[in-house]
């Protein structure tokens, strides 16, 4: 039983950066921008968050900084794609190149200035503590209510985004812009500003996801290649969650489970005899699985009749005078 509880706990922990990235990309894509640069945004946020956490010992400032760095990346993307109408796919890839380079460049400088390790105070702040009362519930308490504070932040953001899309007028306007920018424009909605605002917000959320990776997953030590494809998985997870940040919570849990399964497989194998085969499966298979499953989800979701839930204008730029 303990194995399962530990596994579930670890899955949530590993799924959280994906949840940040996915929520951010959902907001972005809802505005009609297919930003493939999530990986780059997360790298920028990872550096921004770690750097401030390292320098100031202030978690709040660190998260703000991560969001701002993510926004900076999203701003470059937005300016190119919304104002200058550049190709979205290529701009996203360029952003990934840039963001990855950005993080390793400045990360390198950080490393040269002495080994960057977060202070005791920071690690304490980021440690996993059970929430009083709730954390004491058997099993559930450990799985759901004993996490680090950023896990709850991710879930709260995902729920806010979900409610925003569903119940608010700006959220509905965002939907209109992503579905049919010409119609939204004719309604009197400012398409460009809507796209800018949401792409920037999306970038900020992705940036926070990056900070989660550098602050939590790195055990307090900076690592140049920390994001390591999680941005791409987030892009995939958007499809898995069919553009709903509420579904993304469960999606990220499932994806998180796969990423931790490789380390936990031996535990399962030793605890349950009938699972002993798990330890014989090579590690590479477990790492590969999330990508295989995402590919499968992509294919299966495209097989469904009625098409996908992707915002109709996603991937194309809007130019009002286009005839």
């Amino acid at each position, binding site marked *: 039983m303990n194995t399962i509880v530990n596994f579930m706990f670890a899955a949530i922990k590993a799924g959280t950066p994906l949840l940040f990235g996915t929520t951010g990309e959902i907001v972005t894509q809802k505005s009609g921008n*297919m930003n*493939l640069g999530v990986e780059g945004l997360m790298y920028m946020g990872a550096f921004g968050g770690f750097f401030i956490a390292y320098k100031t010992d202030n978690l709040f400032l660190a998260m703000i900084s991560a969001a701002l760095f993510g926004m900076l990346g999203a701003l*470059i993307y937005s*300016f*190119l794609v919304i*104002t*200058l*109408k*550049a*190709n979205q*796919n*290529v*701009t996203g*890839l*360029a*952003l*990934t*190149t*840039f*963001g*990855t*380079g*950005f993080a*390793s*460049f400045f990360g*390198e*400088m950080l490393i040269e200035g002495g080994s960057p390790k977060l202070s005791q105070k920071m690690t304490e702040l980021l440690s996993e503590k059970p929430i009083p009362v709730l954390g004491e519930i058997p099993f559930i308490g450990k799985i759901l209510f004993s996490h680090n504070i950023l896990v709850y932040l991710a879930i709260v953001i995902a729920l806010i985004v979900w409610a925003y899309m569903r119940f608010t007028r700006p959220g509905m306007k965002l939907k209109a812009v992503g579905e049919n920018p010409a119609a939204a424009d004719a309604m009197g909605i400012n398409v460009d500003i809507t796209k800018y605002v949401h792409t920037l917000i999306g970038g900020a959320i992705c940036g926070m996801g990056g900070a989660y990776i550098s602050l939590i997953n790195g055990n307090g030590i900076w690592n*140049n290649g920390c994001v390591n*494809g999680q941005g*791409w998985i987030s*892009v*995939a997870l958007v*499809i898995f969650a069919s553009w709903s940040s509420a579904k993304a919570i469960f999606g990220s849990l499932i994806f998180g489970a796969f990423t931790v399964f490789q380390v936990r497989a031996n535990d399962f194998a030793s605890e349950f005899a009938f699972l002993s085969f798990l330890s014989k499966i*090579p*590690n*590479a*298979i477990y*790492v*590969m699985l999330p*990508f*295989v499953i*995402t*590919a499968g989800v*992509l*294919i299966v979701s*495209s*097989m469904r009749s009625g*098409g*996908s839930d*992707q915002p109709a204008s996603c991937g194309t730029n809007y*130019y009002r*005078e286009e005839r």
Partner: protein
Amino acid sequence: MNNKNKKISIHIAKRPPLPAKTVTLLYIFAIFLALCFGGIFILCLGVNPFKFFAKVFTGSLQSKLARVALMRIIMPLFITSIGVSVAFKMKFWNTGAEGQFIMGAVFACWAAFTFENLPQPIMLLLMAVSAIIGGGLFGMVTAFFKCKFGTNETLLTLMFNYIALYIVQLLRDGIWRDPAAGGFPKIAQLPENAWVYQLGGIDMTWVICIILYIIANIYFSKTKQGYEISVVGDSQNTARYAGMDVNKIVMRTMFISSAICALAGMFQVAGDGTSHTLTTGIASGIGFTAITVAWLGKLNPTGIMAVSVLFGILEKGCGVAKSTFNLSPAVADILQGIILFVILGFDFVITYKIVFDKKNANAEEKKGENA
């Protein structure tokens, strides 16, 4: 007359197509502008940008060793970019070049390990064929789903990159693990008869580049298949109307596209640059860079050649310059990103123009005329 609303406004309008010469000049200016932005960044790091770029340029060409290293960067990038551009011409967004490159290397290794005693020319040919077929099919699978169900190819090919990457890891830790490496997980070096010939001091891959350059030019502009790609890329409905079998063309084109990327992978693994050894870092982002190279080169073989050389010089030169100026090697990535951003943004200038609205001035003129 009420002039309360008097304000000068700016809006954008499409401009009539510019002559090709002007466009070329504008792009050269864009590259210059990009280097200026990059220079500002370098300046911010406290390094003289002129000295830096001079070092980048001379550093990449200064010695025979540097030139060989430069060619090693350019050659796989060029071949992969051509591969990507084949699919892009059809508006099939193949972001899976990285994975196809890797699979090319994997299938080439498979051939080399399986038939280890063949004479060198036959061996190389077999490796190439194996890479083309294996890598081509690996890419074509994505085209199949695109045709059959309309699966988003951008994302699907993206996922395949990682699948390919972990296949190498799987082989490294499993059946291809080199027993001679003593516990260290690595794949054995290819047998010597599977090494690419040397020609002019470097891998003969450059001959392939030239041949590919010529074939690509002819293929795009003179052949029926090239014509079909243009029509399908323009409008699938038009292609169907013309009696073309769109699915067949999409699958065939994607096969060719990924086969070329795979061929690049084969030459990479059989070449000098990797010490003839397959590792998980075999592609190390070439497939992604190729996408941007193909796009910046306007999907035109000559343009792709030029951009490949530019990126090669930048990467190699930054490698040299970083040690001179004590910077991180990641500076090449940042500069590449900046150049990409500037040139991507510069497309705007070619398609659109900014109009400063002098409406009120016009109104005044009109009044004058009426009076």
